[in-house]
């Protein structure tokens, strides 16, 4: 049962072929069997999930269906405030983050009928792309033990890939949804900045944070996104734009859409199998009728630097208290990255913000006059061995972090919608992932293309 997609499970529950309690028990059994190795969960709320499932089954029995996720078990990155459950944000402190309101995205999923299984492991304070955590254990890659699960939404990706939950929420400040999605062979969506409310979730960087779904298929991601997206009065940056029908958009034909492979930056130094997989993906899209071309993108390296200045400054401000009062509680690399922010001047922070505005305007005008989407790798190499990237001098670990996330971070600076999805595997089975990047608020087109690619290939059917 845990092999069912979120969409298929929701349909089976709606038709009363499967009960919510059966679905929850199947997930709990699988968590019991596998999470000792994966360490995907920080807090498991088995009793709460079973009680909620009983209520939902009783409601359905009398014809009351809450919504499209009625009875479906989900889990959330442990930086979302969810009911009375603690929110550690991956730190040593169980209740590190508190909020007067519940995470809006979680509340919307719950209102649509979802069942909360628990809270998912993550890199400490969402700072790091490898999925290691000194307090809650390193999240293991479901495909190959001892290898990077990706971060910072490491538990979200591992739990979805391993069938511990039918979907999850992650957050993405520099790639934290897309990197673990790629490492674990699942789908992750970083929506347009402002598309999904960040209210009730711990901030790492107000300017760059995004919440989004992590699922096994593009259709599942579209369904979750359609539910969580839209204006929220609790988040001043959330857009007033209508969301539109994202699931319905999946059935559009990709024929005629223009797809650009970057000529610069995105293939520099990437592993040969990654390059080959992304180029093959472009070939699949061409066979589906898309018009594939190459395109030189405005310098992504400066976008990386802009994102770094904004992220370091804002994260140091937000988390100043733990850095100054309890630095010994933080991992060395996390502490080092936060401390950088104390040394960035207000002048440089403001110049980075102004620069970001111009670079975004120029990127949208120049790139989307030539193409409808950009296709690029999500990770530069198959998920590496965790020990290889998390041991050694701190400054070297920090540099490795920068290299591993250099393909995703520019799109946080630009705020554009991106879908990451599996596009291949290394010889030993470790997943490879690509990114499809679209116009602002045009999630429908990136999801449509991602769905068309997914349906034309078998990568989403592989299981660890």
């Amino acid at each position: 049962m845990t092999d069912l997609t979120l969409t298929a499970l929701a349909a089976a529950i709606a038709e009363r072929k499967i009960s919510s309690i059966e679905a929850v028990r199947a997930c709990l059994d699988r968590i019991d069997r596998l999470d000792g190795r994966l360490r995907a969960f920080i807090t498991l709320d088995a009793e709460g999930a079973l009680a909620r499932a009983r209520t939902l089954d009783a409601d359905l029995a009398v014809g009351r269906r809450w919504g499209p996720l009625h009875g479906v078990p989900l889990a959330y990155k442990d930086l979302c405030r969810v009911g009375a459950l603690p929110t550690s944000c991956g730190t040593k402190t169980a209740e590190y983050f508190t909020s007067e309101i519940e995470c809006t995205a979680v509340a919307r999923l719950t209102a649509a009928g979802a069942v909360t299984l628990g809270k998912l492991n993550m890199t400490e304070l969402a700072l790091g792309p490898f999925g290691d955590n000194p307090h809650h254990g390193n999240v293991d890659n479901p495909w190959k033990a001892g290898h990077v699960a990706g971060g910072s939404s490491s538990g979200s990706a591992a739990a979805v890939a391993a069938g511990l939950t039918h979907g999850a929420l992650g957050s993405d400040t520099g790639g934290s949804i897309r990197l673990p999605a790629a490492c674990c062979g699942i789908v992750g969506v970083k929506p347009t900045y402002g598309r999904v409310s960040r209210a009730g979730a711990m901030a790492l960087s107000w300017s760059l944070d995004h919440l989004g779904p992590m699922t096994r298929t593009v259709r599942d991601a579209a369904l979750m996104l359609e539910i969580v997206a839209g204006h929220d009065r609790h988040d001043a940056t959330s857009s007033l734009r209508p969301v539109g029908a994202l699931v319905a958009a999946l059935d559009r034909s990709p024929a005629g859409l223009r797809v650009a492979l970057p000529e610069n930056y995105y293939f520099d130094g990437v592993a040969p199998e990654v390059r080959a997989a992304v180029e093959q993906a472009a070939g699949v899209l061409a066979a589906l009728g898309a018009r594939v071309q190459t395109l030189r993108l405005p310098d992504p390296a400066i976008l990386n630097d802009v994102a770094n200045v904004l992220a370091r400054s804002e994260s140091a401000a937000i988390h100043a208290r733990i850095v100054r009062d309890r630095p010994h509680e933080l991992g060395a690399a996390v502490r080092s990255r936060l401390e950088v922010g104390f040394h960035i001047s207000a002048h440089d922070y403001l110049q980075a913000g102004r620069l970001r505005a111009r670079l975004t305007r120029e990127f949208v005008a120049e790139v989307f006059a030539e193409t409808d989407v950009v296709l690029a790798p999500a990770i530069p190499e198959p998920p590496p061995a965790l020990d290889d990237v998390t041991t050694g001098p701190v400054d070297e670990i920090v540099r490795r972090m920068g290299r591993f996330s250099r393909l995703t971070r520019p799109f946080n600076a630009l705020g554009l919608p991106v879908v990451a999805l599996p596009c291949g595997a290394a010889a030993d089975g470790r997943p490879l992932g690509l990114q499809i990047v679209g116009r602002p608020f045009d999630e429908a087109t990136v999801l449509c293309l991602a769905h068309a690619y997914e349906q034309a290939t078998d990568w989403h059917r592989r299981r660890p």
Partner: protein
Amino acid sequence: MSESDPGRRQVQGDVAALAGTIERAAGDLALAEEPSNFARALEAPAPRD
């Protein structure tokens, strides 16, 4: 960290490099440019075929 701490020197070096890059790129920004124009850039209609 003390001023002579290698870790501190590394942080200061990284920040100086980052600041230099940003300053060079921001040198010709229009006077009217402001950070909130980022949201405006996303909300404005993007070019289409």
